[in-house]
């Protein structure tokens, strides 16, 4: 019990609604109870409602409302992109995106790979069964 993810300056959040859906942004300042000033290396600094953000575990070390250059440097130093892509949440999103972008031939290849994997698992299972029997 207890909160682990706080709204604070430097908290990395994911936009979950609207035009910039799926983007990782940094909370750079808090406007009031419902809105934050939010920034990312490839977007203009703007205000977003907290309802459109999902907080992540990643936090970087910045002062209130830093310059764009300082923000980008701090993000590089904390390796936000790397941490995100290695986290289970980030990996799931990457896989979802990949699956959504498959064409029919890719789906065929995935089917073959799944069948092959299933076959290998069943072979191993049969071996283990024989040994224990």
């Amino acid at each position, binding site marked *: 019990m207890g909160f682990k993810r706080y709204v604070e300056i430097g908290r990395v959040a994911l936009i979950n609604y609207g035009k910039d*859906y799926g983007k990782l942004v940094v909370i750079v300042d808090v406007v009031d109870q419902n809105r934050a000033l939010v920034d990312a290396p490839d977007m203009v600094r703007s205000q977003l409602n907290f309802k459109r953000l999902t907080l992540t575990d990643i936090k970087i070390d910045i002062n209130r409302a830093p310059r764009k250059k300082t923000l980008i440097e701090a993000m590089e130093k904390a390796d936000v992109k790397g941490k995100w892509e290695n986290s289970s949440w980030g990996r799931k999103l990457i896989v979802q995106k990949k699956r959504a972008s498959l064409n029919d031939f890719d789906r065929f290849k995935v089917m073959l790979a799944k069948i092959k994997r299933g076959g290998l698992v069943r072979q191993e299972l049969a071996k283990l069964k024989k040994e224990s029997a």
Partner: protein
Amino acid sequence: MIEGLFVGLLIGSICVFSFLFVQYHQYQVVGRALPTESDGHPKIYRMKLWNTNEVRAKSKFWYFLRKLKKVKKSNGQILAINEIFEKNPTKINNYGIWLRYQSRTGYHNMYKEFRDTTLNGAVEQMYSEMASRHRVRSPCIQIIKTATIPAKLCKRESTKQFHNSKIKFPLVFKKVRPPTRKLKTTYKASRPNLFV
């Protein structure tokens, strides 16, 4: 009674509609009375107004000017109307707004503070708040003065509580919404998880 119901419905529908795109813009309106034989060069007056569009801003200009000088739209002319844009919309400011409003029992002055990135946003917040807290509609509100207040001089606790460079708070009630309105459903299979 039926009339009252109709008015209620009308106000309701206007509220829903305006939530989508009521955006207050700030205009500078410059106007004067028309030149006559007795006065060939009437004094030129300039006003800064907030309204949703230029047409309404011009109308409001005459409303205020009529109250201050003996001139009407029919014997005056608007010389210029320009929109004023926010200089730095990426910086958060504390805005103080002094207003005069008409309540059911008389006129009152009020001072309100808002935190926002743009002055137009603060003005829009003010109109919303006056409507919700005091049931004062926008035609009954006159903005006397607006100013950007430095943090030390803010008077209201609700703005002062955000003057903390190490601000930190959890989001206590987090309902996850479908990412687009299209994916919204009336019925759901399981109860939502409201924890962050």
